[in-house]
């Protein structure tokens, strides 16, 4: 068997440029401490491996899953992290997802939160565990890891005999390839009032094929293989959206939906997940070990999947997030500021007392956002820019653990890599957003004297590669504004463990 590479040969320079830029837009609410600490998390995000026999890494993942299932089954049903509580989530809430365009996004959110609970409950060694997926298209026999008797935590009584493999005509590579080539999101994934073909075909079929608990909505999630089946469904969405580059619907009724009051985080507390966050999850929160899902996938296509991940993330970042920010209050802090010669810039922030009061007393559900508008991108991406609040002596050596640190942003490389793809010569003005909320709260709680006389922002160019530190860097920002926004759509988009 060929060994599939698990991470693309991206240069560190390019990766940081991409990821840092992406997170500048993405980390509105979750990435306190800024984007830099998340780069390694994204690069090493958990791997979801496909079920087969004879693979040591997969075997280890199965052992972790067994430990998690056992631990969750040992919890009282009233515990939000218990196996029973997770089953009830599906029983009570999936009815509004099945048969609609929420089918894929709801289950993606459900799996992601379930996966985090599994990591927590499985204990040491499971920190970077990914949920395995059952690729029934190319491995149509029921996975042996889930058979046996009650001594196996993954066994579930009452299943069908399944002496024969799943029907090739329903879930096999040729049929699945046709489904994955459907160009319309509603027909592939589901519309506002109907099922898509992925749901009504392979998804429904496998539920009936396995039978027992899997054959009924209220009990389906009681079977441990349920999650591997839906992980495959999720992999199909990933393949359709990221690999084959089909577009999800941009209908705001879907995009702007939040799943609230349904899921629990790894600490068993209620957690809200937005549809937009689910779109980004395969690029930020986990990655799929490639396996063929259709008859047309060549080895070369498969090994290039991680590069596609990168390109998709790049596209999303360059295009900008599909969100319209709404500000309750917004004022301009500065105009026409320039960073020249690799030097940090301390910029006084002109602000009236009434606005400062709003910033300092921002409501729990609101965010304080700094918008940096009409930025002339520098000619190279060898630097990223750290943003601090009220730290006039901030410099290159100031760590991002400093309480004044708010976030950072970076730029796509222009030159040998992205230039080939036509992105590097795009001279359009950029806009970045830095979330100041946690920094302001932290400084206020720490007793920092933030007033209209001394409020300032610092922009510190930091070389990505120290050897390039002497290269010229310049950056112009046309307008800096600060505003109060109720935005929370990026909740959970970042890699969460």
């Amino acid at each position, binding site marked *: 068997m060929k060994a599939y590479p698990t991470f693309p040969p991206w240069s560190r320079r390019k990766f940081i440029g991409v990821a840092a830029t992406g997170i500048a837009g993405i980390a509105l609410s979750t990435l306190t401490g800024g984007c830099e600490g998340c780069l390694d998390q994204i690069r090493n995000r958990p791997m979801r491996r496909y079920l087969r026999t004879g693979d040591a890494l997969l075997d280890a993942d199965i052992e972790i899953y067994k430990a998690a299932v056992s631990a969750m089954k040992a919890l009282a049903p009233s515990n939000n992290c218990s196996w029973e509580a997770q089953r009830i989530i599906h029983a009570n809430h999936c009815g509004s997802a*099945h048969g609609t365009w929420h089918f894929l996004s709801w289950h993606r959110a459900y799996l992601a939160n379930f996966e985090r609970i599994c990591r927590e409950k499985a204990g040491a060694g499971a920190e970077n565990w990914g949920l395995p997926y059952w690729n029934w298209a190319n491995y149509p026999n029921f996975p042996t890891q889930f058979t046996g008797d009650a001594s196996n935590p993954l066994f579930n009584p009452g299943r069908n005999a399944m002496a024969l493999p799943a029907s090739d005509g329903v879930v096999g590579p040729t049929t699945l390839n046709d489904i994955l080539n459907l160009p319309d999101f509603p*027909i592939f994934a589901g519309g506002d009032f109907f099922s898509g073909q992925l749901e009504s*075909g392979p998804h429904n*079929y496998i*539920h009936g094929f396995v039978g027992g608990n899997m*054959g009924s909505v209220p009990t389906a999630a009681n079977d441990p293989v349920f999650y591997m089946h839906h992980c495959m469904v999720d992999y199909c969405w990933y393949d359709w959206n990221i690999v084959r580059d089909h577009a999800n619907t941009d209908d705001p009724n879907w995009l702007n939906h939040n799943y609230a009051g349904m899921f629990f985080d790894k600490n068993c507390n209620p957690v809200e997940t937005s549809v937009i966050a689910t779109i980004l999850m395969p690029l930020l929160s986990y990655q799929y070990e490639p396996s063929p899902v259709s008859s047309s996938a060549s080895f070369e296509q498969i090994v290039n999947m991680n590069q596609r991940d990168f390109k998709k993330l790049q596209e999303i970042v360059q295009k900008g997030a599909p969100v319209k920010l709404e500000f309750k209050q917004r004022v301009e802090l500065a105009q026409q500021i320039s960073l020249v010669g690799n030097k940090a810039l301390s910029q006084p922030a002109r602000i009236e007392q009434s606005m400062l009061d709003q910033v300092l007393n921002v409501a729990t559900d609101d965010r304080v956002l700094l918008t940096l508008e009409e930025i002339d991108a520098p000619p190279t991406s060898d630097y990223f820019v750290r943003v601090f609040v009220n730290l006039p002596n901030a410099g290159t050596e100031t760590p991002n653990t400093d309480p004044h640190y708010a976030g950072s942003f970076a730029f796509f490389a222009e030159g040998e890599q992205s230039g080939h793809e036509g992105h590097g010569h795009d001279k359009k003005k950029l806009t970045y957003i830095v979330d100041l909320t946690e920094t302001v709260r932290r400084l206020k709680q720490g007793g920092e004297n933030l007033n209209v006389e001394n409020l300032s922002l610092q922009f510190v160019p930091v070389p990505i590669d120290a050897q390039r530190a002497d290269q010229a860097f310049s950056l112009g920002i046309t307008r800096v504004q600060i505003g109060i926004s109720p935005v929370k759509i990026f909740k959970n988009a970042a890699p969460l463990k």
Partner: protein
Amino acid sequence: MNPHRSFAHFVFICAVSGLGSCACGHAQPGKETAPPELKWAFELSGESPAFRQPCARATLATLPATLILTVSENRNPDQTRVGVAVSFEIVEENLAPESVPIHTLYFFPAEQTGNFGIRLKEQAEEVLRRLGSRPNAQVFLVFSLRSLEEKGLPEALRLKLQTSGGK
């Protein structure tokens, strides 16, 4: 109106009149006009497991890209695992029927009702290609029950379905 009777009537008239393929929907026999939308209602059961809707060439060429199949009633007391296969069928005298599969949907749970989106644009184009210069060939859009179990389709199984045009 009993859809079974009306469709059977259509097929009968077309067959005896020598007009070849019939128009979909409620076009008058002999007129190959495309319907403005796909609206048919029918039942599938163990006794009557298939519904065949004749389609004219003109209809095939102007079909919407998708259709919505609504299962409004799904009586399945034995919880038999069944699916509904949707396909085009090309029929010509003295030749074996040709099937062009579109999609097979299954039910989760077994008694599931609801709406199902199905894309048929590419398959309709494929049928038109295959028809070529075969003036005597008839085309049907076929909805048929499929059993995933050896026991086959139980008599008590009964589904009420209707279609509507997509975009």
